[in-house]
């Protein structure tokens, strides 16, 4: 699957993978802030925006801001968009990548912490909204109780404690990127499933606390009964996949 590299990237370079669907409102500010913060910290990076079939000017705006834009012909959803980004990162030989939101809820100041965790030996690092008191992230009641159930389930199955199983603010090394380029899940709430897959595949997954902001644009996506269905489905998948033994071929060391 890996094609020969046309322009090999330096090993220190970080791919910031940003899935975006109709985010022309938030994107210019998000990309400008990302660039200024990372440049100030001396972190060599490429912003990679995956335009997930947007109907607005997302792709043009991202390109104007200097990002590498991958345009999907139609909307795949967040999981499909992310997997596109992972495949790109693997094909270009990036050693490290960060998943970053286009809607402005992630703070680029926190990226350095994710990278430090990777350098300390993690294959994957999750930025948790609930890890400490700096964070004042508010969620609805259905979501909160479902998150608790998932947290306990993931803890029981993986033997590891994650305070925030659905955070989309994450860092990955080469090993995780190669896994996710092949098997990143595509359904709603894909982040929980991805976390379980990573643990079940024997990757070292750690968590660090991060501060998050409320969304600048866009609305939380789903209504209550749909949310309940998705949590039930997720629970089913998590139970089915997490008990699966890691296959030796799954991750190349």
């Amino acid at each position: 699957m890996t094609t020969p590299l046309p322009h090999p990237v330096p090993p220190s370079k970080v791919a910031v993978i940003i899935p975006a669907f109709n985010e022309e409102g938030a994107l210019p500010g998000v990309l400008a802030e990302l660039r200024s913060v990372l440049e100030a910290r001396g972190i060599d990076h490429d912003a990679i925006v995956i335009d997930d079939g947007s109907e607005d000017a997302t792709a043009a705006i991202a390109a104007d801001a200097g990002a590498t834009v991958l345009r999907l012909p139609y909307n795949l959803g967040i999981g499909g968009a992310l997997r596109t980004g992972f495949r790109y990162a693997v094909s270009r030989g990036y050693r490290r990548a960060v998943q970053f939101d286009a809607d402005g809820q992630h703070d680029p100041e926190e990226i350095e912490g994710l990278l430090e965790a990777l350098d300390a030996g993690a294959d994957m690092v999750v930025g948790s909204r609930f890890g400490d008191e700096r964070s004042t992230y508010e969620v609805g009641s259905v979501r909160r109780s479902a998150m608790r159930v998932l947290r306990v389930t993931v803890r029981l199955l993986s033997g590891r404690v994650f305070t925030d199983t659905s955070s989309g603010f994450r860092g990955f090394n080469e090993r995780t990127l190669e896994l996710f380029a092949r098997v990143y899940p595509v359904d709603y709430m894909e982040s929980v499933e991805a976390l379980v897959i990573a643990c079940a595949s024997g990757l070292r997954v750690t968590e660090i606390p991060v501060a998050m902001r409320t969304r600048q644009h866009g609305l939380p996506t789903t209504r209550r009964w749909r949310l309940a269905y998705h949590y039930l489905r997720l629970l089913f998948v998590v139970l089915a996949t997490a008990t699966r033994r890691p296959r030796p071929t799954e991750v190349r060391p």
Partner: protein
Amino acid sequence: MTTQAHVFVVVVTLLAVAFVIRLVRRRQLRAKYAMLWVAVCAVIAFMAAVPSVPNRLARGVGIFYQPAAFLFAAVVFLFLVVVHFSYELSRLEERSQVLAQEVALLRRALEERRAEDDGVSAPPGT
């Protein structure tokens, strides 16, 4: 039905559930369909285990031959599933069309670019 028949139905249903879960674990079946088939299996197993429930349901809608009620419900359900699948199939066909067209446009753009690199103008057509 005899007790043996009930046990047989329950066993077959459990095997079906195990098969569906196996497919999910191998990532050969999307979770939404797995949920559907597991739910169907649960209903069938429940009816086999507690036969008084389907009997009462059948009488409730005025059908006094319980297997007929069961078959009617099965046909209605499978009809809905098939309609849903044809909807999904149409969507997939549309998407694969778009994908093929996209590839054609990309191929043309690539050929034009290559020709430019070679210092000649792109062949018309191809």
